[in-house]
């Protein structure tokens, strides 16, 4: 809960950073000329100038391509690292640094997928008909929809858990703090001296 509240506080700053990345990265993938990207509070948004048939001038279609409120994988990961028993302060700091970099790269990838999904999604006009942006492709829409939904629904917890488990596996037993007669941090139930400590000696 503490990590979530901290995330709520720092999210606008993080969104500003992602907006900078979006401005550098996304124009090369953008199919609508004149699209702008910017942070709005704790969200990153794409402003696509669209002129619907029959309309005199273009108006911005605003799509949220990243939202802190939907990025709870980051505080979840921080909570996992901070709550893991047996890790020294140094291991926690390194794990947080490596994990947050990895998860931030995943956030950027998610933002790219979301941007692609929204530019493939048609606009529903007042009469119910659909208007497709010039870059629309049915195949790209289906693929980006599946990726977008995975990232949106299942990806946050999945990627955080995956990065955390990878860190647990990659940490050498010598980096885990435990006294010889304490139970082993690997969770085997045996004493540390009879479990991972022997692997270190080997």
């Amino acid at each position: 809960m503490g990590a979530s509240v901290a995330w709520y506080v720092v999210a606008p700053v993080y969104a500003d950073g992602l907006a900078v990345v979006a401005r550098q990265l996304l124009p090369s993938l953008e199919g609508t000329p004149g699209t702008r990207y910017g942070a709005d509070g704790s969200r990153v948004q794409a402003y696509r100038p669209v002129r619907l048939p029959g309309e005199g001038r273009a108006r911005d279609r605003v799509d949220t391509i990243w939202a802190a409120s939907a990025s709870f994988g980051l505080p979840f990961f921080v909570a996992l690292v901070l709550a893991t028993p047996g890790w020294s302060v140094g291991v926690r700091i390194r794990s947080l640094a490596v994990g947050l970099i990895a998860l931030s790269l995943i956030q950027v990838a998610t933002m790219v997928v979301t941007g692609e999904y929204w530019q493939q999604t048609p606009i529903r006009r007042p009469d119910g008909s659909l208007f497709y942006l010039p870059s629309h492709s049915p195949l790209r829409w289906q693929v980006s929809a599946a990726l977008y939904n995975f990232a949106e629904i299942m990806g946050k917890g999945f990627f955080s858990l995956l990065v955390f488990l990878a860190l647990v596996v990659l940490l050498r037993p010598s980096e885990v703090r435990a006294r010889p007669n304490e139970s082993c941090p690997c969770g085997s139930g045996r004493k540390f001296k009879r479990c991972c400590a022997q692997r270190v000696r080997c």
Partner: protein
Amino acid sequence: MARVSRHGAEVRFFVVFVTLTLGMFAVLYLAHDLIVVRINQYVAQVSGAIVGALGSDVVTAGAVIMASGFAVEIKNNCNAIYEFGLFTAAVWAYPASIGAKIAGTLIGAGVLTLVNVVRVVTLVALGVTAREWFEITHLYVWQAAFFAVVALCWFGWVLRVSPRT
């Protein structure tokens, strides 16, 4: 040699975990109307009944709960089903006996369903009594907390099973 074999087991776990997660997502994504929509309605009905028992005027319609002028719709990430899919993938990827995996899956399903109902009920109650706190609690606190429950269930299960390798 032992080091190679240990890493082999870890690589196998990751490959199976990723594959099962993608498989669970594909099944649920493709069978959205058949599985997810029905579970959304079930969660709404159970949660609505509990909120009603706590003294609010509640109406449930499909996956929507309306209580004292406040309405919520149960959607993905509020129904626990994809989180359960992730938990199941982690359980079945871990090297344990079939019996332990089945027990872990069933107990995990029970725990996650229960916690999810608690989540929905508290959010509806919060929406009725202190609406200004609803969004931060819903989007920031409960989402991360629920995945923490998923992780706790899995770690708790792992600590109680004997790996075969």
